């Protein structure tokens, strides 16, 4: 089991004929993802290595039954691409694009609320259920199926988390990168809710960073609703206030959004905090020992 993506996922890729879009589509396909269609306006009728290209998402859905979308559309047109997915009734939309203006995302986010679609990202590495389906730009081969659900605002930190638990032979149920933008679709609480409900997920790693209050809200949610063990990490203890640290959403505003504040809230919620990134694997192994058993944790 897993959350949101599995063997039954049928993927349509928006921006499939672009350089990045094409490259990552083919990596997803090679990983085993069922890529059924691509969309590039004006290029309908072509195909990319056998994947049929359509002019609109609606047409792609009608012809192929796609039930998930991956968005590689450049920032000026990306919000429109997401809206097109929502209107076409796609249940899961994964937006990889970095650099969408906040005002555009505000509209997308409010329109999403009245729909049945789930948006992951933007500005994220994507979502992967190891061995079944990869939607995104992650290096698929570092993952393996297993009992740990991972949710993170950062791409490379997600790979780092996967790598460090893999060293102990611990695999993942589903890994979700929710993205580094200030306004995004799926948040920590959505992922935590799904991981808590998923019988195959036995433990959770949550990777946050400075800016906003999503980690504090997630900590509060964990305290009240999550019974599975959670390991947490927050990046940005040394980040100066008022500066955007790479991610558009990674900024300390005045006294809010600090790493110290987030760590405190998470600690109080009973989350095992990783202070030094180098120790993430060790701490996870120890914190998860009671639930994942000796079988999955080798070495």
């Amino acid at each position, binding site marked *: 089991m897993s959350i949101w993506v599995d063997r039954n996922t049928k993927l349509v890729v928006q921006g499939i004929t672009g350089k990045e879009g094409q490259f*990552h589509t083919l*990596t997803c396909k090679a990983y085993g993802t069922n890529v059924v269609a691509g969309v590039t306006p004006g290029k309908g009728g072509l195909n990319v290595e056998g994947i049929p290209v359509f002019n609109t998402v609606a047409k792609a859905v009608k012809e192929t039954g796609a039930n998930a979308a991956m968005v590689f559309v450049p*920032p*000026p047109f990306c919000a429109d691409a997401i809206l097109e997915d929502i209107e076409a009734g796609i249940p899961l939309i994964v937006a990889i694009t970095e*650099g*969408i*203006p*906040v*005002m555009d995302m*505000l*509209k997308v*986010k*409010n*329109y999403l609320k009245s729909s049945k679609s789930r948006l992951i990202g933007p500005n994220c590495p994507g979502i992967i259920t190891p061995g079944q389906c990869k939607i995104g*730009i*992650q*290096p698929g*081969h*570092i993952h393996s199926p297993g009992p740990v659900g991972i949710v*993170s*605002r*950062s*791409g*490379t*930190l997600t*790979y*780092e988390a996967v*790598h460090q638990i893999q060293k102990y032979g611990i695999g993942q149920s589903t890994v979700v990168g929710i993205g*580094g933008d*200030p*306004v995004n679709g799926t948040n920590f609480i959505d992922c935590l809710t799904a991981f808590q409900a998923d019988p195959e997920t036995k433990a959770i790693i949550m*990777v946050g*960073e400075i800016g*906003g*209050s*999503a980690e504090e809200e997630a900590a509060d949610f964990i305290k009240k609703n999550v019974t599975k063990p959670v390991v947490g*990490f927050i*990046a*940005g*203890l*040394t*980040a*100066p206030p*008022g*500066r*955007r*640290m*790479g*991610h*558009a*959403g*990674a900024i300390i505003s*005045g*006294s809010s959004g600090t*790493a110290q504040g987030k760590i405190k809230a998470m600690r109080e919620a009973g989350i095992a905090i990783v*202070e*030094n*990134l*180098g*120790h993430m694997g060790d701490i996870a192994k120890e914190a998860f020992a009671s639930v994942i058993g000796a079988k999955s944790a080798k070495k």
Partner: protein
Amino acid sequence: MKIHEYQAKELFQKYGVPTPRGKAAFSVDEAKKIAAELGNFPVVVKAQIHAGGRGKGGGVKLAKNAAEVNQYASSILGMTLVTHQTGPEGRLVKKLLVEEGLPIEKELYLSVLPDRGTAKIVFMASEAGGMDIEEVAAKTPEKIIKVYIDPLLGMKGYHANELAFGLNLSGDLAKQFSAMATKLYKLCVETDASLVEINPLILTKDGRVIALDGKINFDDNAMYRHKDIAEYRDLDEEDPAEVEASKYELNYIKMPSGNIGNMVNGAGLAMATMDIIQLAGATPANFLDVGGGASAEQVENGFRIILSDPSVKGVLINIFGGILRCDRLANGVVEAAKKVGIKIPVVIRMEGTNVEEGREILAKSGLNLITAKDISDAAQKIAEIAKR
């Protein structure tokens, strides 16, 4: 992106938001000329830097006559203004705003910005104007009114009413205020502002509502559709190394008094690497995210910019090779190191795709590159270098 007060006020005027009469001055003579054009005294001479707290730092003066305009403009232009936002090194003042002094009846606070938590546009208003709003929020949160607006619906009359009556305004003042708030909403949304703040917004003794101050920040991701606003960028207000880095699309932020430079792929890992350096007992000299597809040119320029900081005693490179393979990256690092000429120790921690090949390339390069086997090892090696 940040802009100056005088630029914010230009935008206010464009949107019909009332401001004091005035103009920017780049010399003492210009300041005197503007004061003469205004026709009346007092006039206000205000330092223009991208930081708040200018009044407390001595950068805002009220001149009662032409001689005082001369005196204040001379003393403020060219001064290094230190405020709670500039850090101890302060900012050199190169521009002034000279404007009419107005009879103040009351000072209010008003701001409008996209709120990340609720995904709405939020107005914040307070009768406690002219004060640090963070302080007001911490000590007397009941004095701040918040009105949330759905961006799909836009601002309606009742939103403006909620603000105006919440501020205890009535009659003509309430009308003037509501009109102003509606224009500010339009400005915020149309220009992709991340913050529009007026502190103080004043009620004058003769019954007018005026933006006495003005601050606007913009969403960098939206500047592609605002070429006119992008021209407001003032490179004098930015760190020269950061300006240089932005030319190569490198995400670089200089840290004061750091001794260990670092180069990382991915913003989260870059922040975490700075934290690791600190935990190891050294101090990070920068933030540098070379991105997921770092080219050889970017790595080279990243190196050059890090090494241009004389306080840097060592460099930590931390790469998780995903799509970007470690062997390709190692080649980039070796070439860059040869070109730039590195005289200080460089510790490299690499993990991920083709890591063995990458490590071999580094080992055979003949350069002063120290390979770390994992993050903890890298931190320890960096700590030893910092102690030397």
